[in-house]
């Protein structure tokens, strides 16, 4: 029972970072931009949030949790949005190839994260010595009172606010895309920028906003990981390949943020399943670690057989738009 409960809790914990990334990438891709820089941006988001909190706590005698939380949140938001802006400028304004820019941004972002992670590590006095415990505690604070309910409390109310935020963002993004004018316009931009343009939509502005916004949301995944999951510390490459899984999840979720929610929990669960399955050897554990990837592949194959119009990627995905080009 305890094991199952912990497993579910941890699966959700693993999933949330991916969910932020996937939601951010969905918003981005809806504008026709395939941002392969998301893995890097998540590193950038994570480290800048941590740095914000770190310098705040370092320079203030009695840090106030909420202020630390606010600072790190803001830092993450700004820096990851900046990552999105670099991508946007290069691909939208300069019409550079999206794949190259994305991959380069990932290289850049991971380097950025590890570099500054190392730098503040040094300032903090060594490896593992970064401590933003006040801020981290604020990020980790679970829902008061409700979290005391047995089982239900553990299952539903034992998470920090970013977990709920991730789900709220996903739900509201789905609503935004489906039911609002701006959402409709955004989808049009991603489907066919020339048509959107002819309909009087400012394609450039939509592409920029969606990409920058998407990057900022994805960056929160990094912040979540560093703050809520790790409790406010840094480890080089500690975020691993989750950014790539987030991009994978976008396709699996058929560009619908609501699907990404359960998808991320599934990914999270499969990610740690090997620890919970009894009787595995080291070798079979390694095979078990393939599960998230194999399941993705299987789902992918099954879903590719249904060729519904609505479950296709935005048609202009990956292509630059130039009004006068034919």
């Amino acid at each position, binding site marked *: 029972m305890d094991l199952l409960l912990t497993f579910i809790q941890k699966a959700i914990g693993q999933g949330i970072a991916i969910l932020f990334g996937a939601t951010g990438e969905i918003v981005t891709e809806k504008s026709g931009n395939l941002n392969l820089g998301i893995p890097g941006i998540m590193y950038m988001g994570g480290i800048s949030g941590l740095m914000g909190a770190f310098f705040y706590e370092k320079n203030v005698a009695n840090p106030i949790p909420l202020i630390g939380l606010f600072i790190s949140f803001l830092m993450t938001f700004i820096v990851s949005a900046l990552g999105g802006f670099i991508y946007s400028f290069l691909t939208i304004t300069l019409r550079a190839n999206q794949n190259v820019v994305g991959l380069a941004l990932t290289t850049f972002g991971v380097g950025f994260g590890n570099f500054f992670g190392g730098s503040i590590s040094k300032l903090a006095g060594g490896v593992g010595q970064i401590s933003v415990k006040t801020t981290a505690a604020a990020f980790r604070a679970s829902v008061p009172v409700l979290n005391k309910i047995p089982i239900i409390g553990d299952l539903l109310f034992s998470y920090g606010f970013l977990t709920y935020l991730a789900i709220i963002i996903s739900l509201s993004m789905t609503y935004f895309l489906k039911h609002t004018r701006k959402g409709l316009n955004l989808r049009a931009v991603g*489907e066919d920028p020339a048509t959107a343009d002819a309909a*009087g*939509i400012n394609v450039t502005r939509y592409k920029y906003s969606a990409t920058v916004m998407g990057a900022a949301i994805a960056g929160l995944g990094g912040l979540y990981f560093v703050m809520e999951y790790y409790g406010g510390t840094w480890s080089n490459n500690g975020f691993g390949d989750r950014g790539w899984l987030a991009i994978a999840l976008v396709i699996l979720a058929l560009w619908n943020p609501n699907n990404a929610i359960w998808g991320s929990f599934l990914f999270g669960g499969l990610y740690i399943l090997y620890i919970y399955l009894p009787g595995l050897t080291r070798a079979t554990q390694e095979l078990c670690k393939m599960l998230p990837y194999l399941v993705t592949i299987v789902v992918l194959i099954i879903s590719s057989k249904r060729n519904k119009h609505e479950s296709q990627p935005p048609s202009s995905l990956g292509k630059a738009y130039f009004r006068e080009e034919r």
Partner: protein
Amino acid sequence: MEQVNAIELKHVTKRFGEVTANDNVSLTLKKGEILSILGENGSGKTTLMNMLSGIYFPDEGEIRINGNAVTIRSPKDSFSLGIGMIHQHFKLINILTAAENIILGLPGEKKIKMPQVVEEINALTRKYGFDLNPMQKIYDMSVSQKQTVEIIKVLYRGADILILDEPTAVLTPHETTKLFQVLKNMKEDGKSIIIITHKLNEVLELSDRISVLRKGTYINTVETKDATVESLTEMMVGEKVSLDIKRTKPTNQKKRIEVCNINCRNKEGLPVLTDASFIAYSGEILGVAGISGSGQKELLESIAGLQKLESGQIFYHTPEETIEDLTKLSADVIKEKGVRLAFVPEDRLGMGLVGSMDLTDNMMIRSYKDGRSFLVDRKKPRKLASKIVEQLKVVTPKLETPVRRLSGGNVQKVLVGREIALNPTVLMVAYPVRGLDINSSYTIYNLLNEEKKKGHAVICVIEDLDVLLELCDRILVLNSGKITGVVDARSTNKEELGLLMTGTGEEKHKDE
């Protein structure tokens, strides 16, 4: 007070690299009139209109709307000036509904109140006599339905000035008539309209005045009542051209293609061809008529080996009088068998040609496999490309230009030229003159006639019934995948064809 014009273009110039698409063009649209713009393919009509709709920005010149000098930097600016444009290629988002497409980009409450929007659209459709389901997805629509969405989109925005770029290219005569009625209603409503079309009879029927462009320059504007097909053509081309098709009697007719009871279904599993059987002979032009989507495309594609057959058989009778069974063979196998089959598909850049490749590489599409070598030979295709450019007067800056950059008419010439160069015994063409100017159209008709004279079998799908009657020897009529008749083109008439096309006529096989 003097009457202000809806649109005045003054000395407008637009260049694309080396190409000057519009050179010092001045043009006026009066309030409440319908103005036609005529010109050969690539003469710059679309470019000129796109400067009004905010897609392109002029290099030089001035634009006045309702008497005021304006700068149109984007489609949005254009809308706010009351200009609505229906583009040559539909500007619709496939996965969205009609209603969603119509309200695209419009300001309004954050949350979309769909029922309200649908009500407003229904009001418009009632007013102008359209037939449209606002909740239908675009990908489920026929071309004319899409056209309707485009028009309502413009009306919904409250445009006073309407620009339609070749709206009738893909419409059936019936649909065209309906559209023109709507346009006339709108004119009554006080709206000003510009229409671009290559069909001169339409021009004469609909418009008040006609402006002509040639090679990017403005030639003249005439009152419609003073114009004739011949005078307009001369203005467009710059010289007198004869506009008749010299149909010869078929000679030496032999069976070439024999289609027996073929059936096939589309992706959604609906039947598109049912028990179709017919024979195409050498030395004749067999026309295919039918309202759009009646199975014309599938019929040709089945013969070309591009369509999966459910049942039925297709035979090819060689000039040497042997018989090849082509049933269920794919295009490459048919070619390997030495069957000289040429096919000009409906979708030029999506199927017949590769848009991003240059002329030379496009020449190779059908012949690159020739020869044993592992490497391709580009010498012959390059020669062929320059030959076609020369003989068919293809307008292109150079042979290395990607075909995507050429105007529609020129693209078509390249494609037809290549297929004829295969020296085929069977030539199949789908909508060969769609979007082509009158001069180019006659060039193509003559090419088809020459093929026929060479003793080849020509099968062509054409939507213009007048042309069918004038060009073909026999006409096969399709109605929802069934062949409702094969008639002699010399003895039939439009009414008979119309009845067969809509399925109200009795089945007719004159040659059997």
